[in-house]
């Protein structure tokens, strides 16, 4: 490179950095701001750039990206104008994503711990060690002594081979994934209400709705591109955004109305809305009569705080009168007393759902799902839409958003949960038989009982029941609740730990073997986003060193364990071969997946893909060819074709503020960082914009305690503590008596403080509520 080129290149880089800082700063001032795609201006004139399509690496919105490569290097990212998800727009994380590849501490080679030190080891040898250890553990302790913990960021083929290896080849259900921590309540909500997972609508709903009600969902930071689409509709058509939350965020300030509630009382407010809908005659009687049943389940289920906790719900049909009677405890006047939501605001919300001439979309994500009554909360949101018949139509519907880029595509559709199979559940003989047939294994090999969900899996590691664990594309020692228990558990000699990742993390720090994984665009793959959109991409650049596709490392280990005949895929084409095998599971009008040739051409395709067409609104016979009951709507996930309106009461959180621990602790994310920060903290512009975590106070609480901005504060619970700088009147505003801490910072592990209580039905932990005290240090 000549001197001129090198200076010129550096200068261009600096200008690009400067532009990115300006955009990042603007994003922190204006919620939902998006910049035009001229970001790559100047680069585009360069005829050598080759633009390849794919989905964004980060969130569940699933924006389409175009990555510009030159001489084998990724040099630019822009929004894909052909993607109907984002129409060419991206958020700050999206624009900067490829910058993490260049990080100096990238894992490029396998590392094997020998005498307490990590030794660089050829990948083949490391894979031998992993396979031998897995096999010898099974020989000595049985197949349920080994476990795998994967991710909603794994690709569809990666999830599929993980499931086939664990359930089909080895014959254990010891497979779960981090989507248990974010989406399990959504899944349980869908299954209990509709008998079929994933939203019925699609993002086009945004273009038709009159009202958006967001339930505990800071979309401006967590789903920024969707939020910008809502803001666009707000200015174009006067659509209204109502933010219902426990903390004032950028979403609240950009909304038409912000309504705050006391943590956990969303259950009561949702019931109060249903009470009002019925009382005021806003119920869509013919819809309810034709398409709904009423049921109740077990109450006082507990919170799963003790090891080996088990719970199975016992649904019982009830009639409308019984449901109406139940709702009498939830008049706005009664609920207002403990929810801290005014009677007027409850009635205002009910009137939005109740107005037959207004279209309403409800959005929610972690606030509702990470909840010890998360399944119930999902059910209750469906109740409002079912009672009013506002469902499965353009602009009318409940819309459960997802956090991770393929929590839907991989975790839920492939089924990398202990109870799941690529189609259906392990408990169902028909589903096991189908899996056995496609996998070509004896069906008796697939066990019929689920074993460990995420929290219980790490408890089993701690107890010594699991003696080998392999994690992939996830960082549980930052993201699990109550990490103070699970970090020492993973350090125990009794368990051999294998970690596959792209960068070192606190989880790889405790590994016996670290496997170097190829990053997103260094491999081909498929992701599935929140609106049932499957997106394919081709490998765009080579991975450094010996970094390898996760799916291929699973296959190599399977072969070494003697299962080669079940994994007859080729290195060059395994993604295609695996997808084509997987696709057979979902054949038919209810879940048909698009052929690979179509996915290669299009910027994503929504399933069910039937007769060459995407189904945008399921269960509505106008749009969904799977409806065959001769009615306008058909909830075909349930045997009688009817959805269930659930009677679910308000119950308290397992731990509430008291004299000793007087504050609620709420945890969450920030727009700049992706989850535990292992990627985004390696992107300079994002790291500079948000370098560390903090503890957010309401100014009145800060004043009372004499706390100033930036002062070091120790946040402690009954489980552990964490020291962070105070933040007052900065990013967000918690209610009085509540503090908020983001979890992206591995140097300030707030999950040492959180509680590992979970929803007994979904087994998803509650990261939004526990009791803490705060002290200056």
């Amino acid at each position: 490179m000549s001197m001129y080129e090198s200076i010129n290149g550096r200068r261009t880089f600096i200008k690009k950095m400067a532009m990115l800082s300006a955009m990042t700063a603007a994003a922190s001032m204006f919620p939902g701001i998006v910049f035009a795609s001229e970001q790559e201006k100047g680069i585009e004139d360069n005829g050598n750039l080759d633009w390849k399509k794919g989905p964004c690496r980060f969130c569940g919105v699933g924006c389409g990206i175009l990555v510009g490569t030159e001489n084998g290097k990724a040099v630019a990212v822009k929004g894909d104008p052909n993607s109907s998800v984002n129409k060419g727009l991206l958020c700050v994380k999206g624009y900067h994503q490829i910058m993490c590849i260049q990080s100096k501490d990238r894992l490029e080679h396998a590392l094997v711990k020998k005498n307490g030190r990590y030794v660089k080891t050829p990948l083949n040898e490391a894979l031998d060690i992993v396979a031998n250890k897995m096999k010898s553990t099974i020989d000595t302790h049985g197949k349920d002594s080994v476990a795998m913990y994967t991710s909603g960021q794994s690709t569809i083929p990666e999830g599929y081979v993980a499931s086939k290896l664990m359930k089909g080849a080895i014959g254990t259900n010891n497979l779960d994934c981090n989507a248990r921590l974010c989406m399990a309540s959504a899944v349980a909500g869908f299954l209990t209400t509709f008998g079929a997972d994933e939203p019925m609508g699609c993002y086009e709903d945004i273009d038709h709705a009159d009202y958006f009600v967001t339930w505990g969902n800071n979309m401006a930071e967590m789903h920024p591109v969707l939020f910008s689409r809502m803001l666009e509709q707000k200015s174009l058509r006067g659509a209204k955004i109502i933010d219902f939350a426990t903390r004032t965020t950028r979403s609240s300030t950009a909304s038409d109305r912000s309504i705050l509630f006391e943590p956990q009382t969303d259950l009561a407010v949702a019931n109060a809305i249903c009470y009002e809908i019925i009382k005021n005659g806003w119920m869509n009687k013919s819809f309810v009569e034709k398409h709904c049943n009423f049921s109740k389940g077990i109450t006082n289920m507990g919170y799963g705080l003790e090891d080996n906790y088990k719970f199975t719900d016992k649904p019982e049909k009830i009639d409308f009168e019984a449901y109406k009677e139940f709702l009498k405890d939830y008049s706005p006047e009664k609920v207002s007393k403990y929810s801290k939501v005014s009677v007027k605001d409850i009635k205002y919300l009910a009137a939005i759902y109740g107005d037959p001439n207004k279209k309403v979309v409800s959005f929610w994500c972690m606030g509702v799902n990470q909840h010890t009554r998360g399944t119930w909360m999902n059910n209750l949101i469906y109740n409002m839409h079912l009672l009013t018949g506002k469902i499965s139509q353009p602009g009318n519907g409940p819309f459960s958003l997802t956090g991770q880029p393929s929590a839907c595509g991989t975790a839920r559709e492939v089924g990398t949960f202990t109870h799941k199979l690529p189609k259906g559940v392990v408990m169902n003989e028909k589903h096991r038989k189908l899996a056995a047939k496609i996998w070509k294994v004896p069906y008796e090999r697939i066990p019929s009982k689920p074993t460990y969900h995420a929290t219980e899996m790490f408890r089993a590691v701690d107890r010594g029941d699991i003696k080998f664990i392999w994690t992939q594309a996830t960082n549980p020692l930052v993201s699990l609740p109550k990490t103070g228990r699970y970090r020492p558990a993973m350090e125990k000699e009794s368990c051999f730990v294998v970690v596959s990742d792209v960068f070192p993390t606190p989880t790889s720090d405790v590994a016996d073997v670290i496997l170097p994984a190829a990053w997103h665009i260094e491999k081909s793959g498929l992701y599935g986003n929140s609106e049932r959109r499957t997106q394919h991409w081709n490998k765009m650049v080579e991975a450094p060193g010996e970094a390898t596709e996760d799916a291929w490392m699973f296959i190599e280990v399977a072969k070494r364990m003697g299962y080669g005949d079940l994994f007859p895929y080729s290195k060059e084409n395994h993604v295609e071969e695996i997808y084509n095998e997987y696709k057979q599971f979902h054949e038919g009008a209810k879940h048909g997946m698009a052929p690979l040739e179509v996915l290669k051409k299009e910027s994503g395709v929504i399933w069910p893909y039937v007769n060459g067409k995407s189904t945008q609104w399921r269960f509505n016979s106008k749009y969904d060819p799977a409806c065959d009951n001769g009615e306008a709507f058909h909830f075909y996930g349930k045997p009688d074709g009817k959805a269930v309106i659930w009677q679910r009461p308000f119950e308290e959180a397992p731990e509430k503020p008291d004299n000793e621990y007087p504050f609620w602790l709420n945890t969450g994310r920030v727009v700049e960082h992706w989850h535990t920060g292992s990627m985004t903290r390696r992107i300079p512009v994002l790291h500079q914009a948000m370098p560390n975590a903090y503890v957010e106070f309401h100014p009145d609480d800060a004043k009372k305690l004499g706390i100033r901005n930036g002062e070091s504060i120790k946040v402690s619970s009954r489980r552990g503590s964490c020291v962070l700088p105070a933040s007052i009147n900065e990013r967000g505003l918690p209610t009085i008596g509540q503090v908020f801490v983001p979890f992206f910072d591995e140097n300030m592990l707030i999950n040492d403080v959180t509680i590992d209580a979970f929803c007994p039905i979904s087994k998803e932990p509650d990261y939004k509520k526990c009791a803490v005290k705060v002290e200056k240090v």
Partner: protein
Amino acid sequence: MPVKSYIAHAMTGKKEELMQALLSFEQCEVIPAENQDVVALVTDTPNDMEEEILKQKIEAIQSLKLLSLVSGFNTPQN
């Protein structure tokens, strides 16, 4: 050789006008926001004095409401 980045806030509805005015200076690169009256701006000038002159010219643009500095980089002359 200073490189600076700014957020340029346009008068309501005047984003396009502001863009054009900024682009008339050779030392400016801009990316407009799609949904706000805001433009991300990077300036690249040979020295501090020229930077200051450019800044004064930018601040004189009628469609500009507010110019806020985000970051500054200084690279050696060659």
